[in-house]
């Protein structure tokens, strides 16, 4: 585990301990299980977002995609009697297709990712509302998919703790994403393109393909979570379902050490970032803080977290540079500027 991730874990434990101390209900099995369920759902979209952020992009349409694919999924299995496995496959395929589209617009058409996905945010939200005529989509009375429901929203007892299946899903996704990002060649390419696309190209990396792949992975994972979230809420009002979820995902990724300039972040960090956000949500509820302050608390903690991280990395770099300098260069030489303000964007 990286030092950064470790300090995030410590922060989570400290916040958790403080909450538990003030309100012991935090530690009730029911509460922990519910909080973990939220972590599972949001963790997957945060990992999805992290892939795009690591290559130096951004994906703003996550929430709208969750709404659109959610209503489509429910429509397929409820109104069209499509088997849920088939419907699931269709939804994931649709998510991948959205990823292909965004990736292509970003690389081949050279449109900025912010703009592409902002348009996506508006388009998919509108499409979802149009599709249901702004009505709430849900399961009819008595409609029942026992297997699907068990898989997506069920809980299994593990050593007496009801572990939500969304968490199992998150653990699987995390494991695969960790190997891909931190151990595979493709993962190296993702970071290389995020850090310096030109140098990656000069090293023979097909940068455009790497970028498109990141958007495709993001789209697929978002579709997966769209199904989980649809099954969890069981009814979808397309105007608000999933709105702001992209911001939760971006926040978790940033807390987890991703830089919006690209090339940084770890999967463990992103998951821990999600945990911290959900614990904060829980904290607002349990400590009797007015729920209207929810966002304000989250924003403040993220800001403090990022500031602390900035401070610590700079100090770490200086120490490292000081260690490297004496042998390699005259001591009066300063640390190269690019290291201090990694101007990847240039």
């Amino acid at each position, binding site marked *: 585990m990286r030092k950064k991730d470790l300090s995030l874990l410590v922060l989570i434990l400290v916040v958790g301990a403080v909450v538990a101390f003030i309100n012991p209900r935090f530690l009730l099995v029911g509460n922990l299980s519910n909080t973990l369920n939220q972590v599972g759902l949001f963790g997957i979209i945060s990992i999805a977002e992290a892939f795009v952020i690591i290559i130096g992009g951004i994906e703003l349409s996550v929430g709208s995609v969750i709404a659109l694919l959610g209503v489509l999924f429910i429509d397929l299995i409820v109104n069209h009697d499509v088997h849920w496995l088939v419907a699931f496959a269709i939804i994931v395929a649709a998510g991948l297709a959205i990823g292909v589209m965004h990736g292509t617009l970003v690389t081949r058409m050279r449109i900025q990712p912010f703009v592409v996905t902002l348009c996506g945010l508006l388009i998919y939200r509108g499409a979802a509302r149009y599709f249901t005529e702004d009505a709430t989509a849900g399961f009819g009375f008595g409609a029942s998919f026992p297997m699907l429901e068990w898989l997506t929203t069920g809980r299994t007892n593990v050593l007496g703790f009801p572990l939500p299946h969304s968490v199992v899903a998150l653990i699987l996704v995390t494991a695969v994403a960790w190997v891909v990002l931190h*151990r595979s*060649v493709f993962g190296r390419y993702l970071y290389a393109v995020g850090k310096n696309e030109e140098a990656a190209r000069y090293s023979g990396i097909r940068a455009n393909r790497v970028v498109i792949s990141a958007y495709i992975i993001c789209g697929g994972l978002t579709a997966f979570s769209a199904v989980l979230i649809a099954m969890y809420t069981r009814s979808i009002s397309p105007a608000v379902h999933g709105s702001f979820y992209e911001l939760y995902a971006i926040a978790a990724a940033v807390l987890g050490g991703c830089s919006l300039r690209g090339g940084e972040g770890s999967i463990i960090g992103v998951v821990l970032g999600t945990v911290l956000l959900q614990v904060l949500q829980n904290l607002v509820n349990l400590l009797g803080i007015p729920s209207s302050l929810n966002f304000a608390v989250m924003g403040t903690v993220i800001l403090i977290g990022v500031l602390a991280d900035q401070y610590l990395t700079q100090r770490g770099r200086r120490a490292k540079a000081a260690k490297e300098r004496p042998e390699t260069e005259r001591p009066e030489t300063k640390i190269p500027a690019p290291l201090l303000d990694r101007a990847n964007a240039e």
Partner: protein
Amino acid sequence: MPEPFLELVDISKTYPGVVALDHVGLSVSRGEVIALIGENGAGKSTLMRVLGGVVEPDRGVIRLEGVERQSLTVADAIKAGIAFVHQELNLFDNLDVAGNVYIGREPVHGGLLKLIDRKRLHAQVRPLLDRLGADFEADAPLAELSIAQCQLVEIIKALSLDARLVIMDEPTSSLTLTETGRLMRVIEGLKADGVSIIFITHRLNEVMQCADRAVVLRDGRMVGALKRAELTPAAMIRLMIGRDLKSLYLPPAAPPGDSVLEIVGAVTDTYPDRAVSLSVRRGEILGLAGLVGSGRTELARAIFGIDPLRGGAIKLDGEPIRIATPQAAIEHGIYLIPEDRKSSGLLLDVSIAENISLPDLASYLRFWMVDTARETENAERQRERLNIRTHDVATPVGLLSGGNQQKVVLAKWLSMRPKVLIFDEPTRGVDVGAKTEIYDMLRRLTNAGVAILMISSDMEEVIGVSDRIAVMHEGAISGFLDRSQFSEHNVLQLAVGHTV
């Protein structure tokens, strides 16, 4: 003889390891046009930066209209009427002509808001446009102007500041012939108005056309001045060269073999109507010389598949190959070490080991994962082989010195058995010790059968390291030189487009 407007006496400037200016003197009279010539790195730009107040000289006196000073500040220079027209134009292409000329000094309406008085702004610029015979309006958006027109805007900006000395850094390097002719007439006009001009150029024809005097710098020293009557290409070149070139040459172990890389009629985007043909033989270092902007880097980028090749063919071992992407070049064993290692050669905050393995990660796989132990092992091997000075191959590359960074870029490709190595400015920003080590490595590579194409603007390097030299001039090869013909004179002749 009127008192000179500006006099530089005994100016010296030393940077760590380099004497940029060595007791240089220069005087400029009113209405005089001075051409400043010399090779890349002769100190021309540093001298002009002293005039602009950007560089403070270590010693010497600057006498401006009779007032002596040790150095100038940028404000002094502007106040004294010294204006620059830079090679890379410092203009805002989202503004119009008048907006650029009066940037930061816009005439405003009174009142709290200080709104820009557009009418007055344009009215102030119009007479200046007429004075230079400009063929565009004061409200023309800059983005729609050609480079030559943008240059005029810079000159107009200078005039609007009451410039009495305009310094132009290679003003014609990106102009067409007609545009150059027009610029020459503008210079004549300014001269007639009593404005002095210093222009840095590599084009000797222009010097003869419009300079009253040519001042020649070499290795930071002023080596001579030629009056108008003495301005001939031969006289100028004689002054520009004549450095003592240290012998760097390491003879190859065996005579060169067959041609490995052959370029036939290659056309790049920069010079769409010029074609380049050359071939690099096994075990040979072919130096590619030429002035900055002669199209060498563009050629290298096209061979490596970064930019598209607009025409011509590439042959490897006699077989025509198609290179549309860097991957294709790499698969053929053709590797490029780019000019700017910071932006295109390295991931600065990534470890040495990961930088080295990046182009060849597929060969480090174990169970579909990158085997970091083997990666480190290879990096350690390269570190020893190339003498990369660091504690640890896990160190981020950005913390290394320039020379060691360059060795890391080299190590990337050496792990992959190069066939052809294209080395763009191998020792730019590299200290002397590492330079020798890099030259040494180049020779060891050619002795192992690698063909090397070495682009270099450093005369000492081109002559000292190459087995053969090709010289480019404005997008085409102007000639080849064998070792027996190697001389600064010959390289320079070809670089400025003359024949040997």
